[in-house]
Protein backbone atom coordinates (compact mmCIF):
# COMPACT_ATOMS: atom_id res chain seq x y z
CA UNK A 1 0.00 0.00 0.00
CA UNK A 2 1.51 3.37 -0.98
CA UNK A 3 2.17 5.90 1.79
CA UNK A 4 -0.33 8.60 0.79
CA UNK A 5 0.81 10.76 3.72
CA UNK A 6 3.83 11.56 1.55
CA UNK A 7 2.84 14.62 -0.55
CA UNK A 8 4.75 13.39 -3.62
CA UNK A 9 2.99 10.00 -3.46
CA UNK A 10 -0.34 11.76 -2.93
CA UNK A 11 0.20 13.93 -6.02
CA UNK A 12 1.12 10.92 -8.14
CA UNK A 13 -1.78 8.79 -6.85
CA UNK A 14 -4.44 11.49 -7.25
CA UNK A 15 -3.22 12.39 -10.75
CA UNK A 16 -4.19 8.85 -11.81
CA UNK A 17 -7.37 8.75 -9.68
CA UNK A 18 -8.90 12.12 -10.63
CA UNK A 19 -10.06 11.26 -14.20
CA UNK A 20 -11.94 8.24 -12.82
CA UNK A 21 -13.70 10.06 -9.97
CA UNK A 22 -14.53 13.02 -12.24
CA UNK A 23 -15.93 10.69 -14.93
CA UNK A 24 -17.98 8.68 -12.43
CA UNK A 25 -19.32 11.92 -10.90
CA UNK A 26 -20.48 13.16 -14.32
CA UNK A 27 -22.15 9.82 -15.18
CA UNK A 28 -23.97 9.68 -11.82
CA UNK A 29 -25.13 13.30 -12.12
CA UNK A 30 -26.54 12.66 -15.61
CA UNK A 31 -28.34 9.52 -14.34
CA UNK A 32 -29.57 11.28 -11.19
CA UNK A 33 -30.87 14.32 -13.08
CA UNK A 34 -32.59 12.10 -15.65
CA UNK A 35 -34.35 10.13 -12.89
CA UNK A 36 -35.21 13.37 -11.06
CA UNK A 37 -36.86 15.12 -13.99
CA UNK A 38 -38.21 12.24 -16.12
CA UNK A 39 -38.88 9.27 -13.80
CA UNK A 40 -39.52 10.42 -10.21
CA UNK A 41 -43.20 11.28 -9.65
CA UNK A 42 -44.40 14.59 -8.19
CA UNK A 43 -45.19 14.54 -4.48
CA UNK A 44 -48.88 14.12 -3.64
CA UNK A 45 -48.80 17.25 -1.46
CA UNK A 46 -45.88 19.32 -2.74
CA UNK A 47 -46.30 18.62 -6.44
CA UNK A 48 -43.25 19.29 -8.64
CA UNK A 49 -41.60 21.56 -6.06
CA UNK A 50 -40.24 18.31 -4.59
CA UNK A 51 -37.67 18.32 -7.45
CA UNK A 52 -35.71 20.79 -5.29
CA UNK A 53 -35.30 18.02 -2.68
CA UNK A 54 -32.93 16.11 -5.01
CA UNK A 55 -30.54 19.06 -4.78
CA UNK A 56 -31.27 20.31 -1.27
CA UNK A 57 -30.84 17.02 0.62
CA UNK A 58 -27.45 16.06 -0.95
CA UNK A 59 -26.19 19.62 -0.29
CA UNK A 60 -27.39 19.40 3.33
CA UNK A 61 -25.76 15.96 3.75
CA UNK A 62 -22.48 17.29 2.32
CA UNK A 63 -22.50 20.41 4.50
CA UNK A 64 -22.34 18.08 7.55
CA UNK A 65 -20.10 15.41 5.98
CA UNK A 66 -17.47 17.99 4.96
CA UNK A 67 -17.37 19.35 8.49
CA UNK A 68 -16.84 15.80 9.82
CA UNK A 69 -13.95 15.40 7.33
CA UNK A 70 -12.52 18.73 8.54
CA UNK A 71 -12.84 17.67 12.18
CA UNK A 72 -10.95 14.43 11.45
CA UNK A 73 -8.29 16.47 9.63
CA UNK A 74 -8.13 18.86 12.61
CA UNK A 75 -7.40 15.89 14.89
CA UNK A 76 -4.74 14.81 12.39
CA UNK A 77 -3.14 18.25 12.66
CA UNK A 78 -3.26 18.56 16.45
CA UNK A 79 -2.67 14.98 17.58
CA UNK A 80 -0.68 13.21 14.85
CA UNK A 81 0.78 16.24 13.01
CA UNK A 82 -0.06 14.46 9.77
CA UNK A 83 1.65 16.24 6.84
CA UNK A 84 -1.50 16.30 4.72
CA UNK A 85 -4.05 16.94 7.49
CA UNK A 86 -3.83 20.74 7.52
CA UNK A 87 -3.82 20.83 3.70
CA UNK A 88 -6.96 18.64 3.71
CA UNK A 89 -8.60 20.89 6.30
CA UNK A 90 -7.79 24.13 4.46
CA UNK A 91 -8.91 22.68 1.11
CA UNK A 92 -12.26 21.47 2.50
CA UNK A 93 -13.44 24.75 4.09
CA UNK A 94 -14.42 26.62 0.87
CA UNK A 95 -16.13 23.47 -0.44
CA UNK A 96 -18.09 23.15 2.80
CA UNK A 97 -19.11 26.80 2.62
CA UNK A 98 -20.24 26.40 -1.01
CA UNK A 99 -22.37 23.29 -0.34
CA UNK A 100 -23.86 24.86 2.80
CA UNK A 101 -24.75 27.95 0.75
CA UNK A 102 -26.45 25.70 -1.86
CA UNK A 103 -28.33 23.97 0.99
CA UNK A 104 -29.55 27.30 2.42
CA UNK A 105 -30.44 28.81 -0.99
CA UNK A 106 -32.31 25.73 -2.26
CA UNK A 107 -34.04 25.35 1.11
CA UNK A 108 -35.22 28.92 0.89
CA UNK A 109 -36.45 28.40 -2.69
CA UNK A 110 -38.31 25.27 -1.54
CA UNK A 111 -39.65 26.94 1.61
CA UNK A 112 -41.27 29.90 -0.15
CA UNK A 113 -43.89 27.89 -2.13
CA UNK A 114 -44.38 25.28 0.63
CA UNK A 115 -44.23 27.32 3.86
CA UNK A 116 -45.11 30.71 2.38
CA UNK A 117 -41.85 32.28 3.57
CA UNK A 118 -38.23 32.45 2.39
CA UNK A 119 -36.82 32.14 5.91
CA UNK A 120 -37.79 31.45 9.51
CA UNK A 121 -35.51 31.58 12.54
CA UNK A 122 -36.23 28.01 13.58
CA UNK A 123 -33.62 25.71 15.11
CA UNK A 124 -32.70 23.75 11.94
CA UNK A 125 -32.36 26.75 9.62
CA UNK A 126 -30.52 28.86 12.20
CA UNK A 127 -28.06 26.08 13.13
CA UNK A 128 -27.24 25.52 9.42
CA UNK A 129 -26.72 29.27 9.01
CA UNK A 130 -24.32 29.11 11.99
CA UNK A 131 -22.47 26.26 10.21
CA UNK A 132 -22.14 28.46 7.10
CA UNK A 133 -20.73 31.30 9.24
CA UNK A 134 -18.26 28.89 10.89
CA UNK A 135 -17.01 27.85 7.42
CA UNK A 136 -16.55 31.53 6.48
CA UNK A 137 -14.75 32.23 9.77
CA UNK A 138 -12.37 29.31 9.13
CA UNK A 139 -11.59 30.59 5.62
CA UNK A 140 -10.92 34.06 7.08
CA UNK A 141 -8.69 32.55 9.78
CA UNK A 142 -6.56 30.73 7.21
CA UNK A 143 -6.17 33.98 5.27
CA UNK A 144 -5.42 36.09 8.37
CA UNK A 145 -2.45 34.07 9.70
CA UNK A 146 0.52 34.08 7.34
CA UNK A 147 2.59 31.30 8.91
CA UNK A 148 0.99 28.02 7.67
CA UNK A 149 1.70 25.89 10.79
CA UNK A 150 0.24 28.48 13.17
CA UNK A 151 -2.78 28.96 10.88
CA UNK A 152 -3.31 25.16 10.76
CA UNK A 153 -3.26 24.81 14.55
CA UNK A 154 -5.60 27.79 15.10
CA UNK A 155 -8.02 26.53 12.42
CA UNK A 156 -7.90 23.00 13.86
CA UNK A 157 -8.86 24.22 17.35
CA UNK A 158 -11.66 26.37 15.91
CA UNK A 159 -12.90 23.46 13.77
CA UNK A 160 -13.11 21.15 16.79
CA UNK A 161 -14.91 23.79 18.87
CA UNK A 162 -17.38 24.34 15.99
CA UNK A 163 -18.07 20.58 15.79
CA UNK A 164 -20.47 21.00 18.71
CA UNK A 165 -22.89 22.46 16.14
CA UNK A 166 -23.16 19.13 14.23
CA UNK A 167 -25.41 17.23 16.71
CA UNK A 168 -27.41 20.43 17.20
CA UNK A 169 -28.13 20.53 13.43
CA UNK A 170 -28.90 16.80 13.25
CA UNK A 171 -31.23 16.65 16.25
CA UNK A 172 -32.66 20.20 16.09
CA UNK A 173 -35.85 18.89 14.46
CA UNK A 174 -36.33 16.42 17.35
CA UNK A 175 -35.30 18.66 20.25
CA UNK A 176 -37.28 21.74 19.23
CA UNK A 177 -40.60 22.43 17.57
CA UNK A 178 -39.49 23.50 14.08
CA UNK A 179 -41.11 24.35 10.77
CA UNK A 180 -38.55 22.11 9.08
CA UNK A 181 -39.70 18.52 8.68
CA UNK A 182 -37.99 15.67 10.64
CA UNK A 183 -35.54 13.26 8.98
CA UNK A 184 -37.06 11.24 6.12
CA UNK A 185 -34.05 9.14 5.06
CA UNK A 186 -31.67 8.57 8.02
CA UNK A 187 -34.24 7.57 10.63
CA UNK A 188 -35.04 4.62 12.90
CA UNK A 189 -37.46 2.36 11.04
CA UNK A 190 -36.01 3.10 7.61
CA UNK A 191 -36.64 5.82 5.03
CA UNK A 192 -40.13 7.34 4.87
CA UNK A 193 -39.83 8.11 1.13
CA UNK A 194 -41.26 5.98 -1.69
CA UNK A 195 -38.66 3.94 -3.60
CA UNK A 196 -39.39 5.83 -6.83
CA UNK A 197 -38.24 9.04 -5.11
CA UNK A 198 -35.57 7.50 -2.88
CA UNK A 199 -33.53 6.02 -5.75
CA UNK A 200 -32.88 9.35 -7.58
CA UNK A 201 -32.16 10.96 -4.20
CA UNK A 202 -29.54 8.32 -3.33
CA UNK A 203 -27.93 8.62 -6.79
CA UNK A 204 -27.79 12.42 -6.52
CA UNK A 205 -26.32 12.12 -3.00
CA UNK A 206 -23.60 9.69 -4.21
CA UNK A 207 -22.86 11.98 -7.20
CA UNK A 208 -22.56 15.03 -4.91
CA UNK A 209 -20.29 13.12 -2.51
CA UNK A 210 -18.06 12.01 -5.40
CA UNK A 211 -18.00 15.61 -6.66
CA UNK A 212 -16.78 16.74 -3.25
CA UNK A 213 -14.10 14.01 -3.13
CA UNK A 214 -12.90 14.98 -6.63
CA UNK A 215 -12.78 18.71 -5.84
CA UNK A 216 -11.20 18.02 -2.45
CA UNK A 217 -8.40 15.99 -4.01
CA UNK A 218 -7.83 18.77 -6.57
CA UNK A 219 -7.78 21.43 -3.85
CA UNK A 220 -5.37 19.41 -1.65
CA UNK A 221 -3.06 19.07 -4.67
CA UNK A 222 -3.19 22.88 -5.01
CA UNK A 223 -2.28 23.28 -1.34
CA UNK A 224 0.71 20.97 -1.72
CA UNK A 225 1.88 22.96 -4.77
CA UNK A 226 1.34 26.24 -2.86
CA UNK A 227 3.57 25.02 -0.03
CA UNK A 228 6.18 23.82 -2.51
CA UNK A 229 6.08 27.25 -4.16
CA UNK A 230 6.48 28.95 -0.77
CA UNK A 231 9.51 26.79 0.10
CA UNK A 232 11.09 27.40 -3.29
CA UNK A 233 10.50 31.16 -3.00
CA UNK A 234 12.17 31.25 0.45
CA UNK A 235 15.05 29.08 -0.81
CA UNK A 236 15.56 31.31 -3.87
CA UNK A 237 15.53 34.41 -1.65
CA UNK A 238 18.09 32.86 0.71
CA UNK A 239 20.35 31.85 -2.16
CA UNK A 240 20.20 35.28 -3.75
CA UNK A 241 21.28 36.83 -0.39
CA UNK A 242 24.03 34.29 0.33
CA UNK A 243 26.91 36.12 -1.48
CA UNK A 244 26.07 39.29 0.50
CA UNK A 245 26.49 37.43 3.81
CA UNK A 246 29.71 35.80 2.56
CA UNK A 247 31.20 39.21 1.82
CA UNK A 248 30.44 40.25 5.40
CA UNK A 249 27.92 42.93 4.47
CA UNK A 250 24.61 43.29 6.31
CA UNK A 251 21.52 41.92 4.57
CA UNK A 252 19.02 44.49 3.37
Amino acid sequence: MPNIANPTVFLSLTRRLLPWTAGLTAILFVAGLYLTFFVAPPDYQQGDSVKIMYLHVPAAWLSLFIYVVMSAAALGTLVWRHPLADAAQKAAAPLGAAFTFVCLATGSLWGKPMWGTWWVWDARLTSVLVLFLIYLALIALWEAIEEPNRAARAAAIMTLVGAVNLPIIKFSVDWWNTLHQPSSVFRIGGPAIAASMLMPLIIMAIAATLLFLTLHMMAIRNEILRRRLRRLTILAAEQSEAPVYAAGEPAR
Partner: protein
Amino acid sequence: MSGSYFGYIAAAYGIAALVIGGMILKIVIDYRGLKQALGKLAGTSPARDDIP
Protein backbone atom coordinates in the same frame (compact mmCIF):
# COMPACT_ATOMS: atom_id res chain seq x y z
CA MET B 1 -43.69 20.11 -14.64
CA SER B 2 -46.33 22.44 -13.29
CA GLY B 3 -45.79 26.09 -14.19
CA SER B 4 -46.35 27.52 -10.71
CA TYR B 5 -43.17 25.93 -9.35
CA PHE B 6 -41.01 26.22 -12.45
CA GLY B 7 -39.35 29.48 -11.36
CA TYR B 8 -38.35 28.07 -7.95
CA ILE B 9 -37.00 24.84 -9.43
CA ALA B 10 -35.08 26.64 -12.19
CA ALA B 11 -33.62 29.13 -9.67
CA ALA B 12 -32.55 26.31 -7.31
CA TYR B 13 -30.79 24.31 -10.04
CA GLY B 14 -29.37 27.51 -11.58
CA ILE B 15 -27.83 28.67 -8.28
CA ALA B 16 -26.39 25.20 -7.63
CA ALA B 17 -24.90 25.06 -11.15
CA LEU B 18 -23.35 28.53 -10.71
CA VAL B 19 -21.85 27.71 -7.30
CA ILE B 20 -20.51 24.30 -8.36
CA GLY B 21 -19.22 25.68 -11.69
CA GLY B 22 -17.55 28.54 -9.80
CA MET B 23 -15.88 26.10 -7.41
CA ILE B 24 -14.51 23.99 -10.26
CA LEU B 25 -13.30 27.07 -12.16
CA LYS B 26 -11.59 28.54 -9.07
CA ILE B 27 -9.71 25.29 -8.36
CA VAL B 28 -8.63 24.85 -12.00
CA ILE B 29 -7.45 28.49 -12.33
CA ASP B 30 -5.61 28.19 -9.00
CA TYR B 31 -3.88 25.01 -10.22
CA ARG B 32 -2.78 26.61 -13.49
CA GLY B 33 -1.45 29.69 -11.69
CA LEU B 34 0.52 27.56 -9.22
CA LYS B 35 1.99 25.36 -11.98
CA GLN B 36 3.01 28.47 -13.91
CA ALA B 37 4.64 30.08 -10.86
CA LEU B 38 6.39 26.82 -9.96
CA GLY B 39 7.63 26.43 -13.52
CA LYS B 40 9.12 29.95 -13.45
CA LEU B 41 10.74 29.42 -10.04
CA ALA B 42 12.01 25.94 -10.84
CA GLY B 43 13.93 27.42 -13.74
CA THR B 44 15.82 29.73 -11.35
CA SER B 45 16.26 27.40 -8.38
CA PRO B 46 19.16 24.90 -8.59
CA ALA B 47 17.77 22.81 -5.67
CA ARG B 48 14.32 22.22 -7.13
CA ASP B 49 14.63 18.43 -7.31
CA ASP B 50 15.62 18.13 -3.65
CA ILE B 51 12.32 19.59 -2.44
CA PRO B 52 9.37 17.21 -2.16
